[in-house]
Structures are given as structure tokens and as C-alpha cells.
């Protein structure tokens, strides 16, 4: 009889805390981007995303509406609300202070009267209502009101709408799909044939080819760029979709062969031998036995390649023309958004989330396959 006070591998409190810290550290940066993608540009600049659920203090200016001027008892009066532009907000802001010049934008508390330079006065209430009075007509240029107010938290889908509406991201999204799908399917199919030959066929130089596929795995892609661009131009492909498909296919092959070879070598030898005894041809063994048995590995391999190509910036920058038409998302985000819209954090965040959505989906659907693909029992490791 075994007497165990405590299984030594049971998670202790320290493990719980350590994992909690780790998970938080890993999650918080993403949360920041997610929250920011629902905030407006000026809110992002005014307060940190961690303060998003709190009211933020903001200083802004409003030009009084000269068209709304009326005469009351010989005085010219403009009445309005400084939050008029935010009328659709669920909760209005609260004015803390106001002013009449940019040098002292919060010189007066609410309820006080500020004297205007040209005569007349201004008062602003806490709820944003203001009243300008002057003995003379305001004319074309009504005075500017400076306000410091606490604005309630506001979340909106505006960033997403803008990113999608401006065609900033829709076209690159389609382009990325167009680049990624063939660049995922082609290397997987080609590698499957090669992996089968490496795993289950006897021939001279097999050991060398297996070693070479592992060696090619780490050959830096950058090496290939200059000669391949030359080659593509020589073949008349130039920079474009066909070129990038071929490039991704070539670059993806070693990894696909490496993973699929491991998976296929894990198929029990008895099954293959039996099939051979029964007179099955190699094509039949491949398509009827090995392929169905290694289907998870194929899916896993494809997932990895998909995410890889989807997120690639380097190959896209080299093999796609710099023109607008066929830009992929990573290029659009780096060049377009980081460049010309630099500082428009909300829009950037929304764009990033749109680009993240599909791979995340693919990964969570095919996660099991991915693991099987990477962990399949090859002879040399468990």
C-alpha cells in the first residue's frame, strides 16, 4: 500500500501565482491594444488605455456659433452648449473650468463670469451651457471658448468603421488571402509527396536528403532574395502574385518536408508492409493509407505555413511590387498606417485586430491538428 501525503507534482500555491503573473504579463499588452481600438483618437492621446473606463480630463476649445446670436434688450447674446458636438454621447461631460484665451484656458470656474476683451462677458455652466453677452454685434467671428472638462468614457466602433470604409484594410485583406491560400496549399501538397518518399521508400541518398531537408530549414531566406528576383525578372514573372506564391512555396518546403517526414515515418511499419504484400502500388499506399493517417499532421503543417505567410512582411516587401494594388496587410499597416496616419493609434489598433482575426480563428480551430503535426512520433524522438 502506498501512503502519500501529497503528490509531489500537484500544483502548489507558488505555481498558481507564477502562472497568474505570467498570464497577466502576456495578456495585458494585447488588452491595451484591444481597448484602444474602441477609443477615439483624442481620448487615446488624453489618457492611458488603462484609464479608459474612467472619465478623462480634456481641454478643448469651441467656437461660439455666431449664427445663433440674438438680441435681448439691446445686448447681443449667443447661448449654446460646449458639448454640442458630442450630443449623441450617452453621458455628457462635466465642465470644470473655462477661459477666453489659449494662454489661460481654465482661468474661470463654472458659474463665474469672464470679461471679454472687446467688452461683454461669458459664463459657462457645469453642464456645458454657455452664454455670451456683448453690447456690440458679434459679426462673422464669434469668440472662442476654452473649456477644461471631464469627459465620460466613450467606446465606439468608429475606428473599425473607418478602417473598413476607407478601403484602408479591405483590399489588403483580400490581397493577403490571395497570397496566403496558394502559398499554404502548394508547399503542403508538394512536401507530402517528398515526405512519403523519404519515409517509406528505399533508395540511395535517402539519409543525405533527410539531413539536407533539416539543413535547409535554417538557410536564411534573405540569401535568396537577390538571385530570385533576378530569376523572376528573367522568367518574366517579375514582382507580383505568381512570384510571391512561388517564393513562399519554395521557402516553405523544407519545414513542410521536415514535419511531414516525421509524421509519416510514425505510421506503423506493419500497415505499410501488409499493403505492399497485398500488391498495393506506392501511389495507392500513399493516397489510401499514409495520407489519411497523417491528415492531422498535414493540417498542422498547413496551419503553421498559413500563419507564417499571413504574418509575413519581409517576403511581401521583396516579391510584391510597391504599388498600391497588391499590397498585403502587414505592408499596409507598416507603410500606410504607421507612416501617413502615424499617431492615429485607434485606427492602427483596429487595423491590427482585423489582421489578427483570421489566423487566430484558424489556430484555435486547428490547434489539435497543429499539435499532432508537430508531435507525431518520429523514430528519433517521442
Amino acid at each position, binding site marked *: 500500500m502506498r501512503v502519500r501525503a501529497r503528490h509531489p507534482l500537484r500544483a502548489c500555491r507558488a505555481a498558481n501565482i507564477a502562472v497568474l503573473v505570467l498570464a497577466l504579463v502576456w495578456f495585458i499588452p494585447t488588452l491595451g491594444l484591444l481597448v484602444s481600438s474602441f477609443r477615439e483618437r483624442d481620448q*487615446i492621446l488624453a489618457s492611458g488605455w488603462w484609464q479608459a473606463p474612467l472619465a478623462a480630463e480634456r481641454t478643448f476649445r469651441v467656437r461660439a456659433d455666431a449664427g445663433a446670436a440674438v438680441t435681448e434688450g439691446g445686448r447681443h447674446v449667443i447661448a449654446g452648449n460646449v458639448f454640442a458636438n458630442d450630443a449623441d454621447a450617452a453621458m455628457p461631460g462635466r465642465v470644470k473650468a473655462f477661459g477666453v484665451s489659449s494662454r489661460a484656458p481654465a482661468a474661470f470656474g463654472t458659474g463665474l463670469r469672464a470679461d471679454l476683451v472687446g467688452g461683454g462677458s461669458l459664463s459657462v455652466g457645469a453642464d456645458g451651457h454657455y452664454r455670451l453677452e456683448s453690447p456690440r454685434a458679434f459679426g462673422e467671428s464669434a469668440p472662442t471658448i476654452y473649456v477644461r472638462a471631464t469627459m465620460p468614457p466613450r467606446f465606439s466602433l468608429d475606428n473599425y468603421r473607418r478602417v473598413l470604409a476607407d478601403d484602408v484594410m479591405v483590399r489588403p485583406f483580400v490581397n493577403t488571402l490571395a*497570397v496566403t491560400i496558394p502559398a499554404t496549399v502548394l508547399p503542403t501538397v*508538394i512536401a507530402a509527396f517528398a515526405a512519403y518518399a523519404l519515409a517509406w521508400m528505399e533508395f540511395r541518398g535517402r*539519409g543525405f*536528403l533527410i539531413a539536407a*531537408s533539416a539543413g535547409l530549414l*535554417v538557410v536564411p531566406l534573405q540569401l535568396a532574395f537577390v538571385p530570385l528576383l533576378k530569376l523572376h525578372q528573367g522568367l518574366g514573372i517579375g514582382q507580383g502574385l505568381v512570384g510571391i506564391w512561388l517564393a513562399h512555396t519554395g521557402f516553405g518546403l523544407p519545414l513542410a518536408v521536415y514535419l511531414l517526414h516525421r509524421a509519416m515515418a510514425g505510421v506503423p511499419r506493419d500497415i505499410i508492409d501488409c499493403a505492399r504484400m497485398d500488391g498495393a502500388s506506392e501511389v495507392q499506399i500513399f493516397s489510401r493509407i499514409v495520407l489519411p493517417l497523417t491528415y492531422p499532421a498535414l493540417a498542422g503543417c498547413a496551419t503553421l505555413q498559413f500563419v507564417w505567410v499571413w504574418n509575413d512582411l519581409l517576403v511581401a516587401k521583396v516579391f510584391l511590387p510597391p504599388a498600391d494594388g497588391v499590397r498585403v496587410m502587414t505592408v499596409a499597416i507598416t507603410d500606410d498606417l504607421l507612416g501617413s496616419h502615424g499617431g492615429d493609434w485607434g485606427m492602427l489598433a483596429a487595423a491590427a485586430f482585423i489582421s489578427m482575426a483570421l489566423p487566430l480563428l484558424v489556430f484555435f480551430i486547428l490547434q489539435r491538428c497543429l499539435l499532432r503535426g508537430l508531435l507525431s512520433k518520429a523514430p528519433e*524522438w517521442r
Partner: protein
Amino acid sequence: MPPLVMALMSILIGVTGCVGYVYFSNLVLDRVIFPASGQTCARNIGRANLVRPWLFLFPALAGSMLYLVFPFAGAFWRSLFDREGDAFIGFANYRALGADHVFQGALANSLLWVLVVPAAATCLGLIAARLTDRLRWANLARAAIFMPVTMSLVGAALIWKFVYANDADIGLLNAIRATLGAAGPLDVLQIPVWNSFFLMAVLIWTQTGFAMVILSAALRAIPREIIEAAIMDGADATQIFLRIEVPQIKGTITVVWTLVTILVLKVFDLVYAMTGGNFGTQVLPGFMMGVMFRDDGRASAVAMVLMILVLPILAWNIGQARKGGD
């Protein structure tokens, strides 16, 4: 033609082409060239089986020859020529690189990246895998750690701008500093040498989840009897982890390490998006992109240097494959 239609067409053509090729080439081999009938039947079957593997291998072989082996040779050859590619200048490109301070910085940074990032990501992933193994809320924790894996490095760079930003109203790090009472905001991406580590942290952040998921599955595949036997012998948790579990999954660790290293070699995206290679954070791929299209000879020389950097990993991988290959 819209790009998506083109993509679907290409899949159709590519896949049917590849499958059709293997099917028909085998058919031709068995029926026409070496028919398994007549007087030379036995000899023909033997011959056909000698040729057949190469039919299966041909597309992949051609692809990797064309896209990896040939460029490798081509890049080496090109690196011996000058800017226009007309004059043979021997190793002058390499000598010029050796004297280039920017290159030296990029080389040092790249070395640092290749050493630090795979090691850190694999170790953290292993620790995370081990710690989450027996937790009740493991799936939640794993999801949080895994999420960055699916992001593009450009997206990751954006996320970390919200952490590193110089403005305490945007950057979390500076906000924390401000709360703790530090004077003035600090732009961590501009501190010499350390800024590289702050960039590496981003890549480690994206890769740890990948390592964790694979390693935790490998940990679970270890036969229970081994662990139970160790427990009976009085091993504690640390001993079991270091002496039994880690050696058992060494092969998987190699794979993870290799895959992360491959990614590190492409790290151009991250640096490009975060610092543009300024403030001494340039890495070799970024440096190479800078000289590419201007001086292909020089760019090719940089690629060769990059290749030399990964030679140890290459040798390690080939050794691993050899051990189990035959």
C-alpha cells in the same frame, strides 16, 4: 482578374498539376517504360522501384533547389562582385563590411538575438508548460500566453508601442514609472544596448506561447510509469522536471528551438516597425534590406554572414536528423 480568383485558379492548377504529375508519371513508369510483364518483368519492377522515389521527390527537390540551393550558391557568387555585378572583386565586399560600423553593430545585435530569443522563448515556454500542466484554470492561462503567436510582428510591434511609448498617457511602462515617482518619461527604445533587449522581449513574448503549447503536449506524452517510478524513488518535483521530463522531450525542444531561430532570422519586421533600425537596434536582415536594390553584391555578402551565424544550428539539426533518419 481579381486576386482571389487568381489565387483559386492557381491552387486548382497547382494541386491538380502536382497530383496528376505523380499519378501519371507513375503510370507511365509502370506501363510504358518498365512494364511489369514479359521476359524482363522482374528486372523491370526492380528498375521501376529505383526510379519511383525520384518521381515523388522531384517537385520538392526542384522547388528547394530553385528557391534555396541555387540562390545560396548564387548569393555567394554575387557577393564576390561589385555593385553593378560586372567586376569581380573577390572578398572586397566582406572587407568593406568588416570596416563598416553600422554593419558591426547589426552583426552584434543579430548574434545577440539568435542567442537570447530562442533560449528565452524555449525556457519560458517550458516553464509555462510545466506550471500550467496541473492547474485547474490552465486553459485560460494558456490561451492568454498563446494569443500573441498568431499575431504578425507588425501587430505585435503596435501592441508594444502602447507599452513602450514615451508618453505616460499612452505607454504603460512610463505610466508605471510615473506612478512610482520617477522623474520624466523614459524612451526605452532609445537607451543604447538595452533597447535591443526591449525589442527582443517583444519577440520572446510572441514565441513563448508557441513553445509552451508544443512542449506541454510533449510533456503529457511522457509515459506515466516513468514519472510514477521516480516519485516512488523519492524524487521531488524539481528533480523530476530537470532529470526526467526535460531529457525525455529533448527532441521536441530541439524542434522548438530551431523553429524560433528561423523566425529570429526574419526579425526585420519587428525592428523595422518599432525603431526603423535606429538607435543602434539594427539587425542583419534590416541592414541587408537597406543595402539591397542599391548594392546587391554587398547585400549578398550580408546574407552569407547571416548564413554563417546559423551554421551551428544547421549542424545540430542535421545531426539530429541523421541520428533518426536511417
